[in-house]
């Protein structure tokens, strides 16, 4: 059972306090988008063994959505950050690089 720190209220939350929301940093495609774009947005997901970015909600706490960067293999958490961003902040990316040099995920590295 994971522990993730909610970046809003600072609580080190047990997984039972959280609800998962799947992959982070999806770009929404609405009307006018191509079939490929929409398929990618709705269905195509990363499934890495290693660095991953996820959405979590502090559902039984402050109620805020946040994002987490963690390793799916070792369960190491590189950091959590507010969901109001389209890309991982530099601090998070640097933290990952320190532990997993040369990492990449989607368009990020």
């Amino acid at each position, binding site marked *: *059972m*994971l*522990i993730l720190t909610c970046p809003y209220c600072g609580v080190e939350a*047990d*997984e039972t306090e959280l*609800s998962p*929301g799947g992959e982070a940093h999806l770009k*929404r*495609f*609405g*009307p*006018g*988008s191509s*079939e490929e774009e*929409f398929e990618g947005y*709705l269905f195509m997901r990363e499934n890495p063994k290693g660095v991953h970015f996820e*959405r979590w*909600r502090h*559902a039984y706490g402050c*109620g*805020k*959505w946040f994002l987490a960067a963690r*390793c799916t*293999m*070792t*369960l*190491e*958490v590189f950091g959590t950050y507010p*969901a*109001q961003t389209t890309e991982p902040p530099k601090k998070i990316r640097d933290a990952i690089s320190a*532990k997993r040099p040369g990492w990449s995920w989607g368009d990020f590295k």
Partner: protein
Amino acid sequence: MSTRLPTGGRLIDRDTQLDFTFNGKRLRGCAGDTLASALLANDQTLLGRSFKYHRPRGLVASGAEEPNALLGLGKGSRFEPNQRATTTELFDGLTCESQNHWPSLEFDIGAVNNYASRFLPAGFYYKTFMAPRAAWKHVFEPIIRRSAGLGKAPTERDADRYEHFHTHVDVLIIGGGIAGLQAARAAAATGVSVMVVEQTAHWGGRAPVDGAEIEGQLADYWVRETVESLGKLENVRMRARTMGSGVYDHGYVLAYERVADHTPDDDRPRHRLWKIRAKQVITATGAIERPLSFAGNDIPGVMLASAVRDYVVNWGVSPGDRTVVVTNNDDAYRTAIVLKEAGLDVPAIIDARPEVSGALPEQARALGIAVHAGRGVAKVLGGKSVTAVKICAQAGEGAPVDEIPCDVIAMSGGWSPVVHLWSHCGGKLIWEAGNAHFRPNPDKAPTGHAGEVFVHAAGNANGAMTTSEVLADADAAGKAAGKAAGGKATRKAAPKAKEEPSEPMLPVWVMPQGADIKLRGKMWLDYQNDVKVSDVQLAAREGYESVEHTKRYTTLGMATDQGKLSNINGLAVLAGSLGDDIPQVGTTTFRPPYTPISMGAIAGEARAELFQPVRQTPIHTWHEAHGADWEPVGHWRRPYAFPRDGETVHDAVKREVLNTRENVGLLDASTLGKILVKGPDAGRFLDMLYTNMMSTLPVGKCRYGLMCSENGFLSDDGVVARIDEDTWLCHTTTGGADRIHAHMEDWLQCEWWDWEVYTANITEQYAQIAVVGPKARMLLEKIGGMDLGKEALPFMQWAEGELAGIPARVFRISFSGELSYEVAVPASRGLEFWIKLMMAGEEFGVMPYGTEALHIMRAEKGFIMIGDETDGTVIPQDLGLNWAISKKKDDYLGKRAQERSHMTDPDRWKLVGLETLDGSVIPDGAYAVGEGENANGQRNTIGRVTSTYFSPTLGKGIAMGLVHNGPDRTGEVIEFPTLKGGSIRARIVDPVFYDKDGEKQNV
């Protein structure tokens, strides 16, 4: 025969005798006995039958690894099958019975499987699944079903209670042997909090039995001193009878405490599940001795050498008069010595090693025990018990050179560290060739939140074999864990132990080395599931190379002991057959729990009324007092109907519908979701959430709206009221309130975070009562306070004021087709308001109605219900709801998805009404069949029923359904086959059955 020895037994109190029964036989044991030692003391060596061949089974082990001695324990509401005799503490009045045989343990019909064993090879199930089909259905399945499962399921409700404990600790130590105790001492000295759990009732593990000496004292003395001193430390907690069950992510550990198994009826909870968050975990879980694979190694009387030693030393029980020891290592000599010193006969030690020297063998020889070097067991003789053993050259093919009468064979194939808990959360193993075992790889330890190592193995569990190695290893683990958990480094050295010189062991996986198929077919690997050396070899020949596949194909290690004895031997045999090295073949995955834990412990307090919270409306008590027949809706309880004395539920529903249509009915609609959406961008936000336009809704008006997922599918519906310029009140379905609120927050926080919108789920702040029927207005006018006339409050508008002195918001909306007001009052005044309506309504014939009447009335009007007409694959366009989809908006959630080719296909199943030709009711979920058959030879389907009721208003069965091109086929008659045979014919009609023009709701 097995019996109680006149002296000895470090764990028993001979002065306290306990009575118990086995298969109805009255027996007697001592306080401190396990059920296993007590049975053995009473010469009860046959304890059960194996799963597949129903072979006679006796004790093999003395602890948690025991595969055979599974018994049905207790009676009635305290009966539980598959209880391990070796881990069951004896108590006065215990009753138990053997399992898996018929008609009796001694004479078992199922044992014919034994003689048919060549027809039940590895992969038997998979092979018979294939063909012929008829044989499977008529022959194999009935036989397997009858014999499947171990033990009997309890028939009564569990009389015991169970609980959960939650705790945090810096260092958790699993295992209370000398390694766990020393690790605790070392960790505690760093100043951090420490908790030690031990699965048995005793501290110290095996060391006292094995004759260890620590700091110049016998291990027993050191253990007592250490436990006492640890007990005095404020930062140390110790729990015996508590098994570390599983190690999970980020230091989460489950432990299973058997609080009162040994003291039933004393009112304490029987089991306790500990949910522990530990910064650091030390697995001091010891090691388990491996059996040797020789022909007849499953006959009762063949036991692990360490277990034989345990029974003598711990419980003063002799497993037999004449014990032959079979080994490939020095440790088993300790058993021979213990037996000899207890005055028992040890006619021979059969040692597979070609040359045997060293301190322990010399000691055995000095006691006059014959040591046969380079020898193995050719065959064990006996049926329900061992009578003799034939010995042979280990290097040969099994030609007997001698026969030795005996009643016990004590075997030792070496020791395997218990690496389960290390492995649960990702710890990897390395192969230690010298000891022929896997041990934890310290370079690949389980890691936690910050990438830090959080599990350390210690002692035997880490591959340390002698007492001094164990103590040094545990001391280092304790110090490392304490420091990692934030403690201060200490310099105190580990205690010293007497040296225990030993000669190397010799890996032996098959005995003798060149055994032929006849012998290999009698060498058991898995005693409980009846998997033999020959089965694993057959699997390898049939192409099973992966250890995980072989396990499933042969069922090796899949019994309730999860292969604690059989796994390493099995994979060594597999490696041998494949010509691979053991580490290349690898192990199967270790999964929690370490040993089975009770369902009661997992449930804890969550049973009966505490199983899950029940949500009650403010009017709940009134419903209860008036005989409500309840329906669970999510966590809510809603009245399904209010049957009166002598009335069936069905009749009550009928009466409630008719009365509402003719007079006036009251519905407790408080469970309806109510979400307030407020802010400068609220209108824009709701335009994205709903398929229709909400920003243009004038203040004071209501509008029915649909919400879709981004995948286009209809997800919720409800009426939205515009409260003021900045504020909308969104009604959701009862089950949808929390989900839709979360959905709103998700989009607001994660996509449109710059929009100024605030949402609040105010579902429970209001009681909401629907006043429905032609006399609804009269009733509300009578209680008075607001003008609710046709002009003052037209259909689809709302007004605020006071009714009967209670602040109220009145929505003029209808889900029944009748004149209808939904009145929201503060939750605290809901019951008062309800009672006032009931009293004032007497002259109008007011009656409460429940959810079934609600459903029927909405179906009569052709209104859809989320979850009936929708199932996550239905789009609003399928339901004829195009009128509720804005054509003007560029975007809303689900719009792009609804433009996909399959969604816009004119050839979809669409909503229609269905009227049966004979007036009967179509079964719920029935499918309509069309022409032809599909690829599976089934009739093609052309539609299905989504809602179906007897309509009291119309006096016949009505239904809604989704039918292929439905609306275009109005008037057509289609056929719904029923489960009973035959079919019901129904005509496709308009889904609005009642008051098509909506005149009744608009008066």
